[in-house]
């Protein structure tokens, strides 16, 4: 986790430096706002990874000498075939089209979105272990 933390922190701090230079040199506040937000997009994930780095057990994928046998147990649950991402996508599509063609597509799209989002959540309970 150390490298993951450092690359995010590195980007965040670099952009923070750029922000500081830009702030005092350009005195243009639109750019400063965007740069400051970008620095946050580097530093916030870095803090998350840094927080976990201290709390999690050392992982075999961070060890140069780990063997395949060192990792026991399932990697995670991976769902098999499911139609709901497609339905969710169509819901988003029709909801988006309502911005162009009027509210009636939102009725269909919104219904699909709610239905698919609920189904996809319920389905998570049935996800198999690989």
């Amino acid at each position: 986790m150390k490298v993951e933390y450092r690359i995010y922190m590195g980007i965040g701090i670099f952009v923070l430096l750029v922000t500081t230079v830009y702030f005092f040199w350009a005195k243009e506040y639109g750019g400063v706002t965007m740069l400051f937000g970008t620095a946050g997009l580097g530093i916030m994930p870095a803090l998350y990874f840094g927080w976990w780095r201290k709390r999690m057990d050392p992982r075999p994928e961070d060890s140069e000498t780990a063997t395949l046998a060192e990792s026991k147990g399932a990697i995670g649950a991976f769902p098999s075939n499911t139609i709901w991402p497609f339905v969710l996508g169509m819901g988003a599509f029709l909801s988006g089209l309502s911005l162009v063609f009027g509210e009636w597509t939102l009725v269909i799209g919104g219904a699909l979105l709610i239905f698919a989002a609920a189904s996809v959540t319920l389905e998570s309970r049935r996800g198999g272990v690989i």
Partner: protein
Amino acid sequence: MTIAEERNDLSNEEGGHEHEHGGPRGIYLWLTSTDHKVIGKSYMYTALIFMLIAGAMAMLIRAQLTGPNNHIVSQQTYNELFTIHGSMMLYLFAGPFAFGGFANYILPLQIGAPDMAFPRLNALSYWLFVTGGITMLSGFFTSGGAAAFGWVSYAPLSSYSNAPGAGPDLWIVAIALTGFSGIFTAVNLITTAFYLRAPGLTMFRLPIFTWNMIVTGMLILIAFPILTAAMIMLYADRHFGAHFFTVSGGGSPVMWQNLFWFFGHPEVYILALPYFGIVSEVIPVFSRKPIFGYKGLVFATLAIAGLSTGVWAHHMFTTGTVLLPFFSALSLLIAVPTGVKVFTWIATMWGGDIEFKTPMLFVIGFLFTFVMGGVTGVMLAAPPIDFAVHDTYFVVAHFHQVLAGTAVFGGFSGFFYWYPKLTGRMYRESLGKLQFWMAFVGFSLTFFPQYLIGLRGMPRRVPVYLVSDHVTFLNQLSTVGAFLTGASFIVWLINMWISWKKPVAAGDNPWDGHTLEWATSSPPPHHNFVSLPPIRSARPLWDANHPEHADYKNQGHGSVPREREEQK
């Protein structure tokens, strides 16, 4: 993480092998699969179809510019064509082809993972991408036509009074949908690379392609939300009477340029970095050497990502509202890590036992075009030059050499390199080489004259020019080149057709590859691996196949020519 044997036992208990016997096929597989390999391939083929459509638009554009005062298409149609050509190539081909197609398929294989971290989110991104593309194209079927304000959609051209009708709104919705698709894919890629690596595969043993995809993902997460926000503001301006980008209500049109290019410049690297990753995979394999300066390449990629956030206003030098020395200096600085990359690639080839197969030819075509585009990019980073050639064909030639150089030459290099892994079949080498030479000659012939056209002052995005402009011959050369490039894609389609109808089995590892994707069968089984080699360096498969030359024994960078090994 489980080792492979356990994984198989588990999947048998849970009945996880649906794909292999009696699972869904055809359209039903396409609609329901959460397998990263199926989604990756769908992404790739969809993006290539979008590329062919946008390429056909480019042919129309070039046909219109063949002679002075041509009237093959109307002015309005011309505007629609270059807008949708640019939008599709950038938002629907170059990006999704790489981070949706290649990365989706290859990244989990390269790190020894069974799938992406969020398979259903992955499927959702694909559907948002497809519907985004359909939305953008459907603009042509509305009464007012498609969006016609260029892929950058500058205010006030994109305001409701200047661009009325449903087409521009469809364009906005399309960008929002593909934007979300990109964001979801980026989350997926980063999480997969951070959390699903095989044991012993530390960050500094990751293949360069995977590294580049991590950095691309970080850039997507930085850039795309700003684009989506800008789209919402633009929509509010158009329909809710907001005044973000109109002077009359106290807004500022230049604000649009700031927002757009704060997305747009990182976007250029989002499009380029994955292809740099592909090139960094192909060169070592076909030179039979480890990559020269692994860490240098990684830090160069990170440096490009960092710098790319501070250069957005070099697209806006001529607005007169930006701090020229700051943006010029940062833009020039980007040449340093990019130069490091180019020299690293050359140094990897240096002294290697290079095999000029189709993927390697495309890489060399990439190097040639990209360096040309890069050098003119350094020129454009200097405000005095930019003032002279801003919005002329010089800029058009520059960014086509950079972007098409990476996305087409880098992209097809990766396509041919991984085609045996994707399908288990081999393409026809002679047709691949023919496609390369047609594309390379055609492409150079298209864009070198455009530098001169630009220097003679022809502005971009104009449908007609006069005889007295003295650009007729150069434009004709450019058109010939464009049609030659177009014909090269027909050769590619023929190649694909032959390899589909008369398959030649490729084998699991036809190139003597270095990284884990070649350690599994072609195409890989459901959940990817039956067994993994031990990982002791950045080239685990090379170590397993050539134990006497393994990287962890021999830290040098020398190549291992085929003959020497055969003698042993």
